[in-house]
């Protein structure tokens, strides 16, 4: 994964995430939309085989990178919970 900042202002962020696709980007988009401080968020995969998706985030008042970090932290917690629930349900380690 490689991240390139295409644009960054006080409340806008546009980054290119190399090597990722809908798996991560759609999850990020939908989770970001749940936050009231998000004005707009979209991502674009211009071609499924060659492209590096663009993620655009516009917030109302928060620093977009700060918000993205917060969302990633929450996703990590959700996925940790999912792993534990699976392990519990499958009775493994």
């Amino acid at each position, binding site marked *: 994964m490689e991240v390139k900042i295409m644009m960054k202002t006080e409340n806008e962020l546009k980054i290119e995430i190399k090597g990722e696709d809908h798996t991560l980007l759609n999850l990020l988009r939908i989770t970001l939309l749940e936050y009231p401080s998000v004005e707009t968020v979209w991502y674009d995969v211009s071609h499924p085989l060659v492209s590096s998706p663009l993620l655009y985030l516009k917030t109302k008042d928060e620093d977009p*990178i700060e918000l993205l970090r917060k969302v990633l932290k929450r996703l*990590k917690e959700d996925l940790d919970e999912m792993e534990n*629930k*699976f392990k519990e349900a499958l009775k493994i380690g």
Partner: protein
Amino acid sequence: MEIEIIEQSDSKMRFLLSGVTPAMANALRRALIAEVPKMAIDELVVYENTSALYDEQIALRMALIPIKADIRLYYFPEECRCGGKGCSLCQVIFTLDEVGPKTVYSGDLKSSDPDVKVVNEKIPIVKLKEGQRLRLEAIGRLGIGKKHAKWQSAIACAYKNLPHLSVTDECNLCMKCVKSCPKGIVDEIGGRIQLVDGVECSLCKLCVDTCDRNALKLEFDESKFVFQFESDGSMKTSEMVIEAVNILKDKVEELSKILEGL
């Protein structure tokens, strides 16, 4: 978030995932199909092939043979210490030398690592006639389904929202819907028509169609997912699902780490 296992064996798994967004369920599905690593034959060195099939056709047939390997013991070629040149840490070599008349099966492949073997020994590769010979070396490498379908270990991986029947007061308990259900899961309980087992429902909507009074409607619970997938045998389903969650976690962690540095 709740996870309830409905059915689980080494080759098939079905569970009810509730309290998550559709995006999360879809991320899990996509990770299972395209990102869980698997060993598959990636390169052939053909020394002799006098069979009826071209080398390329044999290569394709061999690549699609599921191989059981512990993926934690191997590196991806691009991440290996050898730099992708090929070593015992990132590849397994299978040898094959058969003379006709006989049918060459997947079980005839001899692996360089005794723990790495084909899932099913009875997959035919090619039929050899009298005097024909097939002698080759096949190199197995780790890969992911995103790159090629031969590295996809999850098959028939899909989910549906948990269905339930909503019944209006128009219902006169004529029981036509109960009789129409091919799975026998629509029943009258306490004077009301109900879908007894939403997990088993195949969404055929015969109950809705047979109702003369339009009293039934099949609805979905958008936060509950009946999720199911099968394994081709290269990995146990329980390991696969944990691996898929870990892959998603790695992605999230990696992006967080990169953002920390910005």
